[in-house]
C-alpha cells in the first residue's frame, strides 16, 4: 500500500510542507466551500477527537477552531463562492509531544499571514472574532501561503495522555476488574 499512484487523490503524499509533520494522515477530506458542510465536518472531528481521548470541552474547542477556519476560507478566501475547494487533513504527531494536527488548505485569495490577526476586543462590533477564538482554543495556529495559490493553516492541539475513555469508569478493585 506504499505507492499512491493511480489512487483517486493521487500525489497526496508528495505534499509535505514546512511545519508539517511526516506522520501520515488519518484522514484527508476535500470539500466544496459550502457553509452547509461545516456541520458534517464538526461532527466528524468531534467524534475523532473523542476517540483520541480529548474531553468534552477540548473536543468542542477543536470543532470550533476548525469551523472558524473553514468559515474564514469560505468568506475571505472564496468571497462566499460555493464552488471553491477546501482540504482538511488530520494526523496524530507524537514528537515532541503527542498532539492532533489539523491542516486546512484552499486555493482562494492569498493574504500576508502577518495580516491575519485578532482585532481589539474592546471595540464591540459584529464580526472579527474568528481568529481570536481559533488562537484561544488551540495550542498552535499557523497560517502560510500555499504554492501556487491559496492559504494553508495548521492547527495543533495536545492530546491528553493519561485518560483512557474505554476504562474511564472501571476502577481497580471493583468487581468488573477482578475477573479472572
Amino acid at each position, binding site marked *: 500500500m506504499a505507492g499512491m499512484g493511480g489512487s483517486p487523490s493521487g500525489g497526496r503524499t508528495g505534499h509535505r510542507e514546512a511545519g508539517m509533520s511526516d506522520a501520515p494522515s488519518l484522514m484527508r477530506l476535500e470539500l466544496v466551500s459550502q457553509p452547509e458542510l461545516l456541520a458534517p465536518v464538526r461532527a466528524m472531528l468531534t467524534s475523532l477527537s473523542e476517540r483520541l481521548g480529548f474531553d468534552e470541552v477540548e473536543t468542542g474547542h477543536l470543532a470550533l477552531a476548525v*469551523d472558524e477556519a473553514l468559515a474564514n476560507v469560505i468568506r475571505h478566501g472564496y468571497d462566499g463562492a460555493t464552488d471553491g475547494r477546501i482540504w482538511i487533513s488530520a494526523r496524530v504527531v507524537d514528537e515532541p509531544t503527542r498532539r492532533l494536527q489539523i491542516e486546512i488548505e484552499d486555493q482562494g485569495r492569498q493574504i500576508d499571514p502577518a495580516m491575519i490577526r485578532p482585532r481589539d476586543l474592546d471595540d464591540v462590533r459584529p464580526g472579527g472574532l474568528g481568529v481570536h477564538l481559533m488562537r484561544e482554543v488551540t495550542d498552535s495556529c499557523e497560517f502560510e501561503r500555499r504554492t501556487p495559490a491559496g492559504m494553508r493553516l495548521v492547527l495543533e492541539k495536545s492530546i491528553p495522555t493519561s485518560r483512557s475513555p474505554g476504562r474511564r469508569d472501571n476502577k481497580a478493585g471493583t468487581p468488573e476488574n477482578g475477573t479472572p
Partner: protein
Amino acid sequence: MTSGNEMQIDVDRRDDLVVASPVGEIDLARSPSLRSRLGELLGEKPPRLIIDLSKVPYMDSSGVATLVEALQVSRSKNSTLVLAGMQDRVRSVFEIARLDTVFTIVADTATAIRDGS
C-alpha cells in the same frame, strides 16, 4: 443542498415581551436565517426580546456576530435584549470573546421574564 440552512426559531409573544427560541446549532450556514428572523422581531419594537438559547448546543463566531448586531439594533429601538439559558459550551465562546459582560445573560427564560431585566 439547502434544506438544513433555515434556522428553526420558536416564537412566543407575551404582553410586553417576545421570547425567541432558536433550535439547533448556529453556524455560518444558519446565522443568516437567524439574522433575518431577529431583524423581523426587532422591527416590531418589542419592549423586551428574550433570546432563549437553551436549545442551542453550539454557536460559532457568525452566531455571536449576529447577536452582537441584534444587541445594537435593539438599543437603537429602545428594546431590551436578554440572552437566557445559554449552555456551557456556548457560554465559553462568549467568555473567550469577552462578550459575557456586554450582554445581559440570565440563567433561563423564567428568570428573564420574572426579573424584567
